[in-house]
């Protein structure tokens, strides 16, 4: 049934209020079942042997000693994962990333795996596998990887997007260029031009729950996978494609998820666990250790970015150019392209150009991380805008408002914006009491903006009404941020019943049609839309049943406030029928009452945010402490404001960690030196003040409630907001993130020596 996707302004009873999340009690009492919490009779323990080298040929793998160890039930190498990807290079890359094929491409790359009766036996077996490596030259730095002298990681990579087409392979997978206007003319108009180079280091999503799964493959080709994931339907499709299984015969169940932020949109150990189970003919549970998560899952890119911007004395930005180099790990990605698309997206700049270089290095395959690629671009651009404002003598907030993008602005990536909320967030920031609060000694305040597209995608939802009038809402988008509560609220809103009357569940892959990943801030936007439409389907059935119970035509029935009303003069004496009353009679009026919807939820509204950060810098140590932080973001419509605020706070926190501490540190040997939370420092509660939030609601015209995604955008501004605050506290412009104490101290020392 077709449904109207367009936004309709209306008053809500349930939406916009605050309820506790339905999974909350299980999570705080330890009853929630995560990826490692499933068991099966006869299950084995899976472990993976990983390369200790940054780049090496695998000359020989001898597993004979390990195979003879009592308790070892299966050992696999790439030979047990034949390439059945049919020429799909993207899938082939995933397969090679899951298990090295002749070459180890980074420190931590899987080379073999074992399934044994217990943890000790599996660990012992790994030690008995004899791998002969021939070390190869490696490169882990994005700028070095682009040099002519760098070791070429893949002979097959010929740079795309360059004319004439290169004849030799290199580590540069693609060049991207976008923008519009006349750059030279723009800079000629400028009274002030600022040009700076920036670097950002590689960071990990830092989810607390490691990757974990329980795989069971049967000889008849059926299989099951219990897994922590952001998208079990996509995992099903990818794993089936890599292992040559029929998609419908692989049942995937998503566990509760202990964080993902993009890192659980990709398969890492799941195909390995399935291959081990297939070989051993027993279930295999495989849980990554923390060091494996750091070394062998998908962090974000490290980058090197040059920005040049020019402005008139009145603050009008006349031209902007960015050249961005993003490394994608050992396999090509489109991370620089995303940087290009987002860099200047908050502004209306007549002449702008972004050039991106996607580069491969000997590091783990990069994965999405919350608004992937945008925070690094924003760090460079938003820092440069502050430098421009300083040079001109205009307040940074006014500089941004002077150039802000609005409905009708030509976006740097091509199209013209519809209704967007960046100006609203900047005005709210300007008016916020935070901006007028006094700063103490060694403190500084920074403002920065951020943009992320948000996406929709394929979604399928069922809504079933029980005979007592309670409602089961069956969803296929994994709940990573409280969406079960939001979806239950939407169903309650549509049906006109209390929130407590609805239970939302995440179904396995055999129970619903395909659902895309919970990624791109799509969960509430797309599943919310499908839930609205499924509820409206169910209401149609409820009206039909009421008509039958009354013995009138369906056209004379309307649905209001959770009950059917008979309309027209001849029916005015009929008492309303509640959902409960209709449900109670469903067995005798046509059977179960249900609603269903499958939708491609396109038209996700763009997300914009502006942040304010106060930082105090210790001039003796260079340590920066966040003393106050405010997030202002456009949510379109906040279904459950608690969770929207939680997303704002979570994004800001991760961005602050990236800004101040988080960093992959590689040694000269190309190996990761800090693969654990002791040496890779993410912020904890005691590091941060309460992060204040302000939700703005500029409706998305293509969602019935006006919803925009909110999950990602607020990781974009913090790097620059923190950098701008440090600059205002110390006079030092930091151009290298993280802005850790040694880097800030070096900046202070340089400034002092210069003066």
């Amino acid at each position, binding site marked *: 049934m077709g449904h109207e996707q367009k936004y309709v302004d209306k008053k809500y009873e349930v939406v916009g209020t605050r309820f506790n999340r339905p999974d909350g009690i299980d999570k705080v009492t330890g009853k929630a079942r995560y990826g490692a919490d499933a068991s099966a009779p006869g299950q084995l323990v899976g472990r993976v042997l990983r390369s200790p080298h940054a780049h090496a040929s695998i000359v020989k793998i001898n597993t004979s000693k390990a195979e003879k160890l009592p308790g070892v039930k299966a050992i696999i190498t790439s030979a047990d994962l034949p390439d059945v990807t049919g020429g799909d290079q993207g899938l082939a890359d995933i397969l090679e990333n899951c298990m090295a094929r002749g070459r180890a491409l980074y420190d931590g790359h899987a080379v073999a795996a074992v399934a044994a009766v217990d943890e000790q036996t599996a660990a012992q077996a790994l030690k008995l596998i004899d791998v002969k490596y021939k070390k190869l030259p490696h490169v882990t730095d994005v700028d070095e990887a682009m040099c002519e002298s760098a070791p070429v990681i893949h002979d097959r990579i010929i740079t795309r*997007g360059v004319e004439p087409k290169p004849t030799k392979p290199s580590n540069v997978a693609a060049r991207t260029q976008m923008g519009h206007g006349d750059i030279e003319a723009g800079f000629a108009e400028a009274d002030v031009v600022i040009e700076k180079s920036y670097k950002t280091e590689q960071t990990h999503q830092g989810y607390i729950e490691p990757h974990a799964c329980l795989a069971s493959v049967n000889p008849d080709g059926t299989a099951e996978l219990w897994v922590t994931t952001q998208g079990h339907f996509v995992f099903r499709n990818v794993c089936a494609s890599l292992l040559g299984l029929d998609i419908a015969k692989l049942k995937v169940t998503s566990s509760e998820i202990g964080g993902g*932020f993009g890192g659980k949109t990709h398969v890492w150990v799941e195909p390995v666990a399935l291959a081990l189970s297939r070989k051993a003919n027993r279930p295999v549970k495989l849980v990554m250790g923390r060091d494996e998560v750091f070394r062998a899952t998908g962090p974000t890119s490290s980058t090197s970015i040059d920005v040049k911007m020019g402005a008139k004395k009145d603050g009008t930005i006349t031209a902007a150019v960015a050249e961005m180099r993003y490394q994608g790990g050992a396999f090509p990605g489109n991370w620089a392209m995303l940087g*290009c698309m987002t860099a200047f997206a908050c502004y209306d700049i007549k002449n702008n150009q972004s050039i991106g270089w996607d580069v491969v290095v000997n590091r783990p395959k990069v994965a999405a991380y919350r608004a992937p690629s945008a925070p690094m671009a924003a760090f460079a651009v938003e820092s440069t805008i502050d430098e421009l404002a300083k040079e001109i003598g205009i307040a940074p907030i006014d500089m941004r408002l002077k150039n802000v993008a609005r409905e009708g602005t030509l976006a740097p990536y*091509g*199209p013209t914006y519809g209704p967007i909320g960046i100006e609203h967030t900047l005005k709210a920031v300007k008016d916020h009491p935070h901006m007028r609060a006094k700063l103490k000694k060694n403190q500084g305040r920074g403002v920065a903006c951020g943009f*992320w597209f948000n996406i929709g995608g394929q979604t399928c939802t069922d809504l079933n009404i029980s005979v007592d009038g309670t409602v089961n809402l069956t969803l296929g988008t994994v709940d990573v941020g409280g969406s079960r509560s939001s979806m239950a609220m939407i169903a309650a809103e549509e049906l006109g019943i209390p929130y407590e009357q609805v239970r939302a569940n995440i179904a396995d892959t055999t129970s619903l049609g395909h659902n895309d*990943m919970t990624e791109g801030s799509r969960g509430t936007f797309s599943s919310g839309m499908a839930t609205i439409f499924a509820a409206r389907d169910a209401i149609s059935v409820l009206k039909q049943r009421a008509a039958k119970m009354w013995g009138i035509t369906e056209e004379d029935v309307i649905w209001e406030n959770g009950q059917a009303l008979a309309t027209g003069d001849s029916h005015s004496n009929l008492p309303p029928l509640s959902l409960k009353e209709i449900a109670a009679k469903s067995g005798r009026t046509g059977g179960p009452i249900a609603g269903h919807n499958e939708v*491609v939820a396109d038209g996700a509204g763009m997300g914009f945010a502006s942040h304010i950060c106060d930082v105090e810098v210790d001039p003796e140590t260079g340590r920066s402490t966040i003393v106050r932080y405010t997030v202002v973001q456009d949510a379109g419509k906040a279904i459950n404001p608690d969770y929207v605020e939680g997303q704002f706070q979570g994004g800001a926190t991760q961005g602050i960690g990236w800004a101040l501490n988080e960093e992959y540190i590689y040694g000269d040997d190309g190996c990761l030196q800090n693969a654990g939370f002791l040496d890779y420092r993410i912020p904890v509660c005691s590091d941060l003040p309460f992060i204040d939030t302000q939700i703005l609601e500029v409706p998305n015209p293509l969602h019935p409630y006006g919803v925009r995604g909110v999950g990602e955008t607020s990781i974009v501004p913090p790097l620059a907001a923190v950098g701008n605050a440090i600059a205002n506290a110390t006079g030092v412009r930091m151009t290298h993130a993280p802005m850790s104490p040694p880097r800030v101290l070096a900046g202070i020392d340089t400034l002092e020596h210069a003066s």
Partner: protein
Amino acid sequence: MRVSLSSTFDLDGGLGGSVDMHAETIADIMATLIDRYPSFQQLLDRGVAVSINGQIYRDDWTQPIPADAQVFLIPRIEGG
């Protein structure tokens, strides 16, 4: 109707640009481009989204295109 291409797209050696065509849906645009530029299939395989009057459509090729709409092809976005 004029369909503009992101400058990251390469059709027959030229980056970006625009193509005039008659199209009532996104599917019509894709069919026309594959017909005129067989290499467009490679771009499709890597992922193409369509912006219609500023709204981005990634998946629904049945989406109708209003008369005089601004139509822009951009890379398909994913997220985290």
